[in-house]
């Protein structure tokens, strides 16, 4: 079979549905715009937590051996296999007691459940691909942890870092039920406005909402690609300037 032909077929199936989502008129829906602040803040917070916790855990799973780490890996994967939404009923009652219900922080914590397992996997694969020897090499080259990350490990892990940010953004944006339940309608995120629009009849408003839903991850991704290019350019420039 011809590779080009198959590629064209796939492209057709995947791209064609996206052609019709552009609304005839694009009016900034004020209700959606209002949610953007919370939405972006939530994305930033969830992504940052994912990177911090996932980096450490992924590294541990990639390079530690023994029974503990095997069990840890399994425990971290639990939300991939279990009904997270149903379990959050119980969490909601606890959050009420802890004063976290209907709070930004409460939603933030619960959003770790559908995101962090993927993040840890991505980091584990990333570190395994780098390999222990290369990582040990970076330790020998640069002793300072922060400099090591900035000059070596960060640029080496670029594909992983990008995938994590992208995936976490997409999953976070998609959560309606979890946010409604834990946020109690007080923590207003994009999905809370989009969801009712999809059940309604206003086609243009729904299309506009979809543009936001798909556009936001895209913009964030383009942003991070630029960020990483800049990062690596700075690293190169600094290294060029270093005197031996």
């Amino acid at each position: 079979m011809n590779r080009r032909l198959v590629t064209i077929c796939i492209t057709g199936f995947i791209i064609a549905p996206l052609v019709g989502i552009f609304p005839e008129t694009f009016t900034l829906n004020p209700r959606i715009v209002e949610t953007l602040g919370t939405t972006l803040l939530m994305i930033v917070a969830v992504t940052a937590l994912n990177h911090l916790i996932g980096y450490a855990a992924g590294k541990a799973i990639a390079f530690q051996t023994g029974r503990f780490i095997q069990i840890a890996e399994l425990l971290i994967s639990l939300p991939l296999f279990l009904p997270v939404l149903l379990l959050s009923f119980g969490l909601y009652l606890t959050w009420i007691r802890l004063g976290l219900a209907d709070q930004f922080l409460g939603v933030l914590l619960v959003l770790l459940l559908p995101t962090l397992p993927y993040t840890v996997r991505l980091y584990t694969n990333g570190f395994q691909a780098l390999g222990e020897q290369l990582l040990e090499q970076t330790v020998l080259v640069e002793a300072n942890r922060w400099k090591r990350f900035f000059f070596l490990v960060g640029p080496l892990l670029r594909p992983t870092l990008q995938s994590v940010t992208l995936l976490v953004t997409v999953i976070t944006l998609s959560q309606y039920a979890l946010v409604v339940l834990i946020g109690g309608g007080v923590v207003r995120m994009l999905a809370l406005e989009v969801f009712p629009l999809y059940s309604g009849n206003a086609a243009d408003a729904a299309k506009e909402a979809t543009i936001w839903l798909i556009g936001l991850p895209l913009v964030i991704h383009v942003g991070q690609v630029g960020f990483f290019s800049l990062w690596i350019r700075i690293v190169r420039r600094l290294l060029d300037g270093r005197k031996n």
Partner: protein
Amino acid sequence: MWRGNAFPAVFLIAGMVLYGLFVSVSMTTIADYQSLLTDSVLIESLTLSLYVASSSTLLSLGIAFGLAQFFTQRTGLAEQVLALPLFIPHLGAAYLAILYLSNIPVIGPHETSHLSLILTYIYKETPFIFFYLLPVFRRLDHRYEELGQLLGLSKIRRFWHGKGIFLLFPALEASFIVFAFVLFAYEVPALLGVTYPKMIGVYVFDLYTQGDLSQQPTAFAISVVLTVCLLLILAGFTWWIRPITERLSKGRIE
């Protein structure tokens, strides 16, 4: 931190999952579980969910498997194109189904065939499984199959020993993840499903949030039962595959 630290992740995730389960259990009595046995709405909802989840998973797996096999050597543009659906939140993918399939009989949203639902999941999950399996396909050592040929093994055994055994567990794992996800999802079936029977995620969520307080123990009981079932399946699965995957990963390094 030199070798990483899994404690924060384990603490947060296992803490929330197990505590959530614990609270759910504590909200129920034996009678709540007994009443589930005769709950015909639940049974219908479960049957539907299993149908949608297994057909979505099998179809996505089949397509993704074929594509990953086809593109093992070189992906070219197809890799970028297949990554596109990963950018699209499930909610957005569900809207694509509303937008294009609405007026089509049988396939459209709110039809009992639930094909729009299944198609949406194929759109979203095929790339997921594809990118899950692609590196596995790329790491396959084709010399195992050549060796099988030299040893005079039949085509089927050659495939099994040379490729199948290395692909089986990653494929099962990816399928398990997709299956559980589809089975309990809320957003997509709430938008595309019919009013009766509902997919299980929608049914339980609505029971908890929209029903009166007397319904809540039932919702808790259902989540406990489903969670425990999946935990058992997961435990069995892990117990079964762990020794084999260990052999596979250690035995290949040499």
